[in-house]
């Protein structure tokens, strides 16, 4: 195994490619958090009064809460007063109206990230709302979307232009006091994305946002709200990268999804925040609250995530299955290497009748990584005919990593059918040898096997993301043939 282990290390130990720092002037608040800071952020965002009140309420709740400690992760205490809660690239007075107005350095950043906006516009037909640190700087394809009535804009713009929608849905799924990090986000969130898809509209393109943490010691607290009205459909892609820093950086985002009757939301994430170095120095603390509510009959929410980055990942994209016959899905690949830690999974709460949920989780542990699946399937008393299937598989590479599975199944209705299966295995030496005997290098053999292991999740991703995800795992493309 020793040579195989070495190969695996070489494969997953690649230098963090996205680790460059963009040198542009930032408009940054000094570190620390009190009511004045919340008011200052609100003022910088030109919040209407209702928004300021909402933030202050969240801040008061946050002050009364304690940081959760139940996850299977280990890190030194975070000094929440040492973090700066606002950082925006200094731009001309107003936000740019088109790409031409965007700071060329920023565009260069995106080029390095492999998301050339111009090209994507032409080739992929993907509308990108790029969040640089905390403020959205460019939104494309707005016009096309506006034609069919889809609203896709930075959160701050939605607060200004669509206050009724924001008032109605903000905090409707993740209330201000939901948990410690959600409360923090609710108080200080600086920007994010807002999507509204009107009744019966099938969003004509994949919507995408790239997040990136740039400034030192700044938290990224973006907030995303997606509302799919009756019978509509939207697919949303979220990609994340961050530069290399020795310090740890905090990322506490909130994502809320609302699917009305017959609506479908597909939310895909490829998370590649800086994971820290081999010794565990630096890296992002990714403490994220993501939750969707299937409000109406036959609503469907599907989460797909590929988590390869961050020093610590703490997130449980969840679905509240309120509408009858509503569907929740969670597909996840989480890779931890070096000293990365991930405690991730989902909650499926079955409330309506004949609801169903599917959970497919693939954890890969290498180096000294600790990988935990934590999931809750809850069938409440009145939830007739609920159905859940969960499968959680772990793949171990190297003898110093850990893989842990903590499913919680709570069933209060006799008509429910709930099934959970989990396996943990080592990457097969005989599989590696078999591939090598056919002439594949060990590295390619590992990639191939890992890719095969993750296949059920990758095929849920939109094509461009699937490619990126496979690259991220050091994998050459499978399925190009035949």
């Amino acid at each position, binding site marked *: 195994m020793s*040579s195989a282990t070495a190969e695996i290390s070489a494969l997953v130990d690649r230098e963090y490619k996205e680790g460059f720092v963009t040198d542009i002037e930032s408009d940054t608040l000094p570190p620390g958090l009190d009511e004045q800071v919340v008011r200052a952020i609100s003022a910088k965002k030109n919040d209407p009064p209702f928004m300021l009140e909402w933030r202050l309420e969240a801040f008061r709740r946050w002050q009364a809460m304690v940081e959760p400690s139940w996850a299977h992760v280990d890190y030194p205490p975070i000094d929440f007063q040492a973090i700066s809660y606002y950082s925006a690239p200094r731009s001309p007075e107003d936000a740019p109206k088109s790409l031409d107005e965007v700071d060329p350095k920023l565009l260069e950043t995106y080029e390095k990230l492999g998301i050339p906006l111009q090209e994507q516009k032409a080739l992929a037909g993907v509308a990108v709302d790029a969040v640089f640190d905390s403020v959205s700087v460019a939104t494309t394809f707005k016009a096309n979307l506006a034609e069919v009535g889809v609203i896709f804009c930075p959160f701050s713009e939605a607060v200004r232009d669509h206050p009724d929608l924001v008032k109605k849905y903000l905090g409707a799924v993740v209330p201000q006091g939901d948990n410690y990090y959600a409360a923090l986000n609710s108080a200080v969130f600086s920007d994010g994305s807002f999507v509204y898809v009107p009744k019966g509209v099938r969003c004509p393109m994949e919507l995408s946002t790239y997040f990136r943490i740039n400034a030192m010691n700044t938290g990224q607290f973006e907030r995303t709200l997606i509302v799919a009205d009756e019978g509509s459909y939207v697919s949303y892609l979220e990609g994340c990268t961050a530069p290399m820093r020795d310090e740890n950086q905090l990322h506490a985002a909130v994502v809320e999804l609302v699917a009305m009757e017959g609506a479908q939301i597909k939310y895909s994430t490829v998370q590649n925040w800086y994971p820290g170095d081999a010794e565990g120095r630096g890296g992002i603390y990714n403490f994220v609250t993501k939750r969707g509510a299937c409000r109406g009959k036959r609503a469907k929410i599907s989460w797909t995530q590929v988590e390869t980055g961050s020093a610590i990942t703490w997130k449980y994209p969840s679905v509240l299955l309120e509408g009858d016959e509503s569907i929740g899905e969670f597909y996840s690949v989480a890779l931890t290497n070096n000293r990365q830690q991930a405690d991730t999974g989902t909650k499926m709460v079955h409330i309506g009748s004949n609801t169903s949920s599917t959970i497919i989780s693939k954890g890969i542990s290498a180096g000294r990584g600790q990988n935990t699946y934590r999931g809750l399937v809850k069938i409440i008393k009145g939830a007739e005919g609920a159905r859940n299937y969960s499968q959680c598989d772990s793949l171990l590479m190297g003898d110093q990593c850990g893989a842990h599975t903590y499913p919680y199944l709570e069933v209060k209705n006799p008509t429910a059918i709930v099934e959970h299966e989990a396996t943990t295995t080592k990457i*097969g*030496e*005989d*599989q590696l*040898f*078999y*591939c*090598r*005997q*056919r*002439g*594949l*290098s*060990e590295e*390619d053999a590992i990639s*191939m*096997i890992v*890719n*095969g*292991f*993750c*296949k*059920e999740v990758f095929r849920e991703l939109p094509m461009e993301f699937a490619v990126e995800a496979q690259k991220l795992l050091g994998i*050459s493309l*499978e*399925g190009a*043939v*035949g």
Partner: protein
Amino acid sequence: MLSISDLMVEVGGKPILKGINLNIAAGEVHAIMGPNGSGKSTLANVLAGREGYDVMRGSVTYGDHDLLALTPEERAREGLFLAFQYPVEIPGVTNVYLIKEAVNAQRKHRGESELDAIDFLKLVRQKLQLVEMKEEFLHRPVNHGFSGGEKKRNEIFQMAMIEPRLAILDETDSGLDIDALKVVASGVNAMRQGDRSILLVTHYQRLLDYIEPDHVHVLADGRFVKSGDKHLARELEEHGYGWLEEQADSGAGQSAA
């Protein structure tokens, strides 16, 4: 093509091969027969480079190469193919994908361009006929959920695609019914041409009814105790291995051709 000289191999400190000598010339078909535990599969695995076997003495020359110094994939790219006794299951990886990667890895090694999708598919269809397998089987995960016979046919199919210079078939006949055996054998016979050498490792003589070897060697307790032509296999069928093992015990083993 292949020259094994005084090869001694241990597994976990226990001697398994105790001085093997064997020369296989280009185009020859050799069969190694022997009772269970005689070291047949060990020899096949050592030649392919599987870990866990300690070579204590001796050398193996393959073409111009010191075979034992090469990694498993280097051996494969130099044209050495092992049909596994127990083909490995790889969930999530389709058969066709593995084969395409394998074929292209070898082409690249030889400085040839990769096959384009159309040529590759043409070749695949042609070779599938050889082992009488349906196309849908290409898109199933490698050996996953295959019957024993399908796994063995898959090995021969891969061999046909890869077109090795030296093919080692490790107990490819075990667990096959007579029809499957005939299919496998005709697949192998179709491959028997020009410079290609084949090493058959088998416990039973019946495979040799369908694939006629040029030379037969009997392995017992880690040594070749007798070598001969195809008639030796028949003798073994009639008399069993007992009389040869006695020879091995008395140390009267002789080197193979």
